[in-house]
């Protein structure tokens, strides 16, 4: 990473986009207390993540990408576990787990071990674990990967109403269309550097976010060569 500085307004739906290997996951890990940065700070609602980690983590719900889950638990057990780890009350956890699993269309598989879940279901159960304690900030790394369209729509409407009621969401993605439709703010990251940040309309400057992104990041190769692919 090359000295990224990002300001995420409270109550915004913030998208971080960038090509593969741009440093999205690394940035989010350092901002959420999972990976210690060499220098710099991360502040959530006035709480320094690295100076007062326990307090900061209470404010955050995190869906990390590329980490395992305790997958020998059933879906229901895993979300319950996430709630209890945060010191929540048993009855509150139980009622929220039921609602979350229903909202994410996992109620039918609540008693199945997470190891037997499909990729999309695993993503959803991890999301449920991040939501259980009603955080003020949600940090979701690639939340829609492998999730079916219906579930993705459900998740989006959950997130929309969450933001409407004052919550803040940060998502990383490389699906530009999704970010353009869903987010109100966006940051473009490439090779560990911040290329652009602001509201979606500011960043895309009239063009579609995808075209603007390609223009910012560069590296689009023109479809010359590969003639043999058109000759059969």
């Amino acid at each position, binding site marked *: 990473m090359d000295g990224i500085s990002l300001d995420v307004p409270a109550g915004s739906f913030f998208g971080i986009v960038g090509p593969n290997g741009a440093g999205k996951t690394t940035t989010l890990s350092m901002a*959420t*207390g*999972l*990976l*210690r940065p060499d220098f710099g700070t991360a502040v959530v609602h006035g709480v320094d993540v690295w100076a007062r*980690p*326990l*307090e*900061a*983590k*209470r404010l*955050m719900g*995190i869906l*990390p990408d*590329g*980490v*395992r*889950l*305790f*997958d*020998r*638990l*059933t*879906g*229901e*057990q895993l979300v*319950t*576990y*996430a709630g*209890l*780890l*945060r*010191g929540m*009350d*048993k009855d509150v*956890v139980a009622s929220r787990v039921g609602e979350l*699993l229903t909202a994410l269309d996992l*109620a*039918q*598989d*609540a*008693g*199945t*071990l997470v*190891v*037997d879940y499909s990729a999309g279901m695993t993503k959803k159960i991890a999301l449920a*674990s*991040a939501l259980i304690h009603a955080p003020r900030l949600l940090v979701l790394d690639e939340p829609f990967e492998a999730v079916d369209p219906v579930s993705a729509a459900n998740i989006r409407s959950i997130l929309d109403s969450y933001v409407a009621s004052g919550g803040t969401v940060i998502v990383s993605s490389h699906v530009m269309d999704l970010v353009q439709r869903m987010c109100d703010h966006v940051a473009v990251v490439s090779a560990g550097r911040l290329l652009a940040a602001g509201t979606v309309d500011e960043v895309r400057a009239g063009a579609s976010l995808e075209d603007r992104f390609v223009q910012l990041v560069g590296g689009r190769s023109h479809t010359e060569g590969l003639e043999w692919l058109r000759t059969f």
Partner: protein
Amino acid sequence: MVAHLLRLKLTLLRNGLRRSPWQLVGIAFAGLYALGVVATLVVVLVLLRRAEPELVQTAVVLGGAAAILGWGIIPVVASATDMTLDPARFTTFAIPMKQMLAGLALGGLIGIPGLATTLVALATVVSWSRGVLPAVAALVGAVLGVLTCIVLSKVVTTATASLAASRRFKDVSAIAFMVPLVLLGPIVAGVSRGISASAGFLPEFAQAMSWTPLGAPWAIAGDLEAGQPGAAALKLLISVAVLAGLTWCWKLLLERALVSPPYSGSGKRKGGKLGLFGLLPAVPAGAVMARSLTYWIRDPRYSGSLIVVPLLPVVLVFQGSQTGDFSTLALLAPLTAFILAWSISADVSYDNTAFALHLASGVRGVHDRLGRALACLAFALPVVLAFAIGHAAFAGEWASLPAQLGLSLGILLTGLGLSSVVSARYTVAVPLPGDSPFKKPPGNVGQTLAVQFAGMGILFVLVLPEAALLIAQLVTGNSLFGWLNLAVGLLLGLALLVTGVRLGGKWLDARGPELLAQVTVNR
């Protein structure tokens, strides 16, 4: 195409080694071990050249039959078999079936088991080099035998591929494999006693075996040497027919596997059963304890070590019955205490990156440590107590019970405290979640060994008071030392457990992200 498949296999092997020099060291050790075994067998086979033909025939046929049997059985129980050339991965390439079969079969020869089997099989040619005809027959037999080994294992793995892909089967077979492994001593002793009692029966057994698909290829040369060309020809026919039949089966299975990739699913199950999470107190430490206990039951990497525990007394009693001296049985309770307490010293390594949940939730380190230690204590305490009391009852040594309890509880509690510190600071190379407990773990073998040895050394020092009191009682015969031992074991053990949980918790709070980074390397 065959050459391509072979080159692919070699490249996969080489790139696998390139990932870390320690892996190379691991392969080198495995290779050295295999080389030792192979060299011994080859020397024996060469020496057999001067032996009675009947003895050679018996040894070669029985050994060869065992090899074929092994190639057939081991892939089923060890779900960690080499699937680098898994046919399912070639589904998208249109490879002609014949070349695919030849390539995969020869690919099976590359690797330590394949090479070792080939070398030993070729050594039988030396044993039978008593004339041109037997030597050539031995060569033909060896080639047929080795190919039968490979094709049989391919048939078995392909047939069970969809079965082996199911998680439940993997879990059960991995644990089931543990049982014969632990009981290896008694089994070997029993079998060898049986064999030595019936040495005269072995040649007959080999003779019978030589008519079966397992023994036929290895018996051809011996029959020629014994002047029975008819029998030799028949056995050659049997071997060729079996090999052809197996290859045909394999082809059918492969054709099926290529169009229908293994499906590993399980039925949907509704929730409502929280298991231990509903029983234990709903606080962070209680939740960690419930999760750990659930893993002790459901994760074969944990339950595999759990299944060793009830087998320990079996092994020790058997050993005692062999020598008539049951004094080693006194080790049962302390040894069990050590094994169980030390087993959680790699807890975070076993979690792998799932540990991120603890970190993201802001669990306090001390709760994390306490939950894991209590989970282990929950079943280790009754087991150790039962073993100590059981030993006293079995040996009729009630006078030594307090000392036994003191030492065992001391080791258990101290060990749990030490493990809580160790797993908060160091990661070790363990099989990844979902892998077989026997799979060679990725990661730093050097650090693993260092952590294990240093940890055991420190544990030894920490339980010196209990050990000293035990010795004092043995020397003086004064039972006061035994009661003192019980008190010291309990109190000192508890104190060290609390210290360990606190210190481990503190380190975990300070270094959680670094620990996560360390386990991330091995995912």
